[in-house]
């Protein structure tokens, strides 16, 4: 096992999703996005029609991710920021 963390910087991507019919639809989109190895975390909020995710920029980019959301769903207005993976791991551990 790698003793160092497997990632350096990740990208936090947020975009709106329209066309979700219900919570199951939102969860299904979340699952499909998580199947992408480059996407480490993801949550699709049905009520807010919003998707938040973290991805490894060495393996994909925001444009490709947005394009992977297929019709009848429509993803747009992406907003992205860089985050250190170490911070994500640190926030995950209970203190």
């Amino acid at each position, binding site marked *: 096992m790698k*003793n160092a963390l497997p990632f350096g910087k990740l990208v936090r991507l947020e975009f709106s999703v329209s066309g979700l019919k219900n919570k199951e639809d939102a969860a299904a989109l979340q699952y499909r996005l998580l199947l992408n190895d480059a996407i480490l975390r993801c949550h699709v909020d049905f009520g807010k029609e919003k998707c938040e995710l973290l991805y490894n920029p060495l393996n994909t980019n925001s444009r490709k991710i947005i394009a992977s959301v297929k019709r009848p769903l429509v993803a747009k207005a992406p907003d992205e920021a860089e985050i250190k993976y170490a911070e994500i791991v640190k926030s995950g551990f209970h203190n």
Partner: protein
Amino acid sequence: MGLAEKISRVSGDYASPLPVQTRSLCPECKAPLLAEIYEKSGKVRIRKTCGTHGKFDEIYWESAKFYDFARKFSSKSRGIENPNVGTFINNDGSNCPFDCGICSNHHTHTGLSNIVVTNRCDMSCWYCFFYAKEGSPIYEPSLGQIRMMLRNLKNEKPVSTNAVQITGGEPCVRDDIVDIVKIAKEEGYAHVQFNTTGIAFANNAELVKKVKVAGATTVYMSFDGTSKKTNPKNHWEAPFAIENCRKAKLGIVLVPTLIQNVNEHDAGNIINFALNNLDVIRAVNFQPVSFVGRMPKALREKQRITIPGAIKKIEEQTNGMIAESDWYPVPCVAPFSQFVEALTGRRQYELSIHFACGAATYLFMDGNRPVPITRFIDVEGFTEFLSEKAQELEKGKSRIATGAEMLLKLGKFIDRKKQPRNINIGKLLFNALVKHDYKALGEIHHRTLFLGMMHFMDPYNYDQARVERCDVHYAMPDGRIIPFCAFNVLPEIYRDKVQRQYSVPWKEWQNLHPEKNINYKYRRDVKALEASPIYKSAYFSQQNFFEGD
């Protein structure tokens, strides 16, 4: 009922009379689906429809009667105070089971934690889904990472787990396994168990002594039957592992995976085998099969067995000496912790898992006769009594008065004529519950056999209400804590995905460990093993405790 109304009923009413709405998964595409658990011809089934892959209708439990009995023991759970809801991603649990971490929607704290210490294994069983095939990346966390994962679990609030299972792959292929046990002890774990084939312990008595000295408490050993046919994995080695554990005074739990038409006919023999080794075997924990991956319906129907089905088989195979009425769902013991909590004012570990996840009973030995605990203790009456007392304490009743009442009324729930000779159950229970003297209870545990059932799910019978209440959790090196039936049913987004991230390629691992033969697979000398007196004594000199009159 509209869809929104149906969704709002999900989870909250999980213990209602059938039919019950829940959420499940499409076994083909894993799409989340609304599902219904319902009764048909005395059995409990789960049905769901995927828009793409059609209808699925699967057995959930073989007995609607036992389901109706079990659901009444459902216990309220209080979850954890410091969930990992994500500072960067708002994974609030609304898309369960894709939001794990552990989320704010999870109802139970960790009971048994699991740390995967390797994905290597020295066996290659065809049915196993959990080891690195040749050429696959090797996942083997460092000791530092293992300590971090253990600490993460320990920091769950308000109740932290006291039990950890070291698992794999085969954990004993690691050279530093003794150090891992030491770290678990340093991090405050009272109960440290190995999930293993036991083959390393069969072949290395010194290793058994070392892990025992380091603080290991239990060997959770796969044991699928008492014959070569039903237990091809470790039939030959199990007697030697048992013998080495006996010498080292290291307790064993036998873990049979039960499959209909494969080994379910051997369940009674397995219990009998355990009773013949009661000085070292503490428990048998049956695991009715869960189907990983796609499987044709006909084969599922042929091989599926669930908790009531396994209990029925045991009743038949033990001549009614362990009957269906002797089994209780796991959450039936929740009133014990509620009572102790009310008495001491300290939060206690609560076994508030879903009633369909597990069942258990205790066998006491009365001379040469195994007697289930239910034959001399009114379990239902006693747990109801404890619940009442807990409520009274919470309302301010004096602890001294409650203790005195307990002393007076405890005997009412015990049939002294039927209780095993030389054991004063009433005194033991009083000491444990009121005086918190668990030593005597621990000693009695050495003269009893715990029988458990733990039924893990698969995509066909997936019930979200169950996974939300799971208390068998895996810690991951990225800081997340994942319930068993999310970790193993959705490996593509949890287990395998994260292990890939933290692995090294096969060749690189071999270069890093030139002294190791990464391709090593265990080969047994059947003739030599079968010729040993230890083997012969284990299988051919057994007493039959369930012989009919």
